[in-house]
């Protein structure tokens, strides 16, 4: 399972990075005369468009390939923001004393008792919709999982003898946390991060589907699905393939996360 997961994730990254080389067509080139052509294996297909075309005659495969960039960028950027913030807050809560701890955990509890997708939808409806805003908002909404776990682990690791030893040798608080506690929370953080990536990719797709995420002409799988939905009775491929791309990517990330969790 780990091997399948890793292969899927690496392929998705490779596709995103090599998009200009891999894409057979310009993803934004419209050809209305070629609108809604089916995939090559169906009758009436245009052989140069492997997965067919959308309502503006744009090549579906090329758009899916470029869409990988959006999804992975949101996944990576969101994890970077959520992970950095969450781990930092968790380390502080677990090591700075009872008062700080209680105050921080109260904030965490408040955020956890709010439906995350609703929070994101509400914020995105009011601030402008752009890739950067999607990444920042999703990152700021999902940091709490990291904070909770890291805080718990910090409290536990601090009790270990090697930390006691380092303290006895006169190590500063900052050094204790960064040199001795931080390495201990890395494996758990990696597991949370993979789960987080799949949540982020699905959330971005939902937002784009609702028209609140990445805006056209930037290709995003969720946006493509929303456009495909308008014509799915005439041209099923426009709604099916982008969704398949999301499913496959998220599945790969989840399999990887499962394997990491078991190997811990």
């Amino acid at each position: 399972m780990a091997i399948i997961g890793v292969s899927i994730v690496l392929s998705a990254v490779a596709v995103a990075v090599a998009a200009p080389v891999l894409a057979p067509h310009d993803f934004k080139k419209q050809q209305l005369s070629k609108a809604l052509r089916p995939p090559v294996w169906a009758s009436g297909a245009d052989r140069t468009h492997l997965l067919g075309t959308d309502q503006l005659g744009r090549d579906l495969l090329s758009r899916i390939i470029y869409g990988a960039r959006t999804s992975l960028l949101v996944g990576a950027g969101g994890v970077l923001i959520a992970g950095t913030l969450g781990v930092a807050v968790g380390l502080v809560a677990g090591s700075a004393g009872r008062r700080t701890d209680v105050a921080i955990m109260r904030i965490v509890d408040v955020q956890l008792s709010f439906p995350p997708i609703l929070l994101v939808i509400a914020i995105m409806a009011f601030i402008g919709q752009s890739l950067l805003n999607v990444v920042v908002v999703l990152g700021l909404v999902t940091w709490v999982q990291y904070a909770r776990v890291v805080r718990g682990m910090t409290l536990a690791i601090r009790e270990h003898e090697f930390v006691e030893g380092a303290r006895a040798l006169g190590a500063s608080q900052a050094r204790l946390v960064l040199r001795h506690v931080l390495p201990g929370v890395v494996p758990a953080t990696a597991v949370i991060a993979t789960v987080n990536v799949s949540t982020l990719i699905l959330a971005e797709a939902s937002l784009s589907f609702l028209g609140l995420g990445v805006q056209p002409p930037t290709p995003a799988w969720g946006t493509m699905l929303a456009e495909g939905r308008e014509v799915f009775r005439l041209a099923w491929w426009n709604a099916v393939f982008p969704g398949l791309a999301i499913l496959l990517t998220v599945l790969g990330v989840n399999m990887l996360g499962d394997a990491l969790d078991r190997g811990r």
Partner: protein
Amino acid sequence: MSVATYVLHRVAQALLVLFTVSVLSFGLVYLTGDPASALVPLDATPDDVDVIRRGFGLDQPLYVQYGRFVGRALRGDLGQSFRYRTNSLELVIERLPKTVLLAVASMVLATVVSIPLGVLAATARRGPGDYLATGLSMLMISTPAFWLGILLILLFADQLALLPAAGAGSWRHLVLPAVTLAASSIGLLTRLVRATMTEVLRQGYIVTASAKGVSRAAILYRHALRNCLIPVITVLGLQLGALLGGAVVVESVFAWPGVGWLLVQGIATRDLPLIRSAVLVIATLFVAINLAVDLLYGCVDPRIRHA
């Protein structure tokens, strides 16, 4: 911690969350920069904007505005919906039963499917049944709900003409949205049941029961399942909240006339009072469900209070 302290603690936390929710739904319009121009329809003139600014008291200090907002909200007034020209909160409350129906139906479906599936996986560990259940649940967690919804419409409404593709009214309208919304919960719960059941089946009393000659079905459903229900029910409570959030997306795929679809329409038409009301109502419901679940379990299972 005594029960009374626990209840008090938990209620105080819920109130804090409600306060945050109110600040958030109050503050949302300020994220746009100029709340006055955000609060009027797109075709308003600059004079209209000025009227709104004074009319809504937007020239007052923020704390005064917030106080007025809460005062009005408590009286059930969150402003007129631009599109429907009536009280936006009433509009939302009117749609609420439909959303609750959808969420509850999905939760029942998720429970009914995931418990046997999880038990199957736990008892047939590393067998075909386990791989099937585990694979299926992984797939369900990874599937975007709106895509699943479109596929189900293509198959069951268009090709087979078995079920309606959109709208509400009969139980047949409920089937596709409920299945769509339940899918990821089914995946999550199946994994949870499998994990807790595996753990429980290793316990001594299970071995004792089977040594005494108790039948396999009785061991599974009378002894083991009961003991893995507490984590399952706790997660179910949390899932109900998640389903309320997920309903926003699923409702708009199936044109299901609930709060979620109303919210999405409100966003499309920039109907800010309506968005505010929908967010406030869903969030309040979510907080209430969480509180109820926590209080119930704090009373039933002492271990939770002490955690």
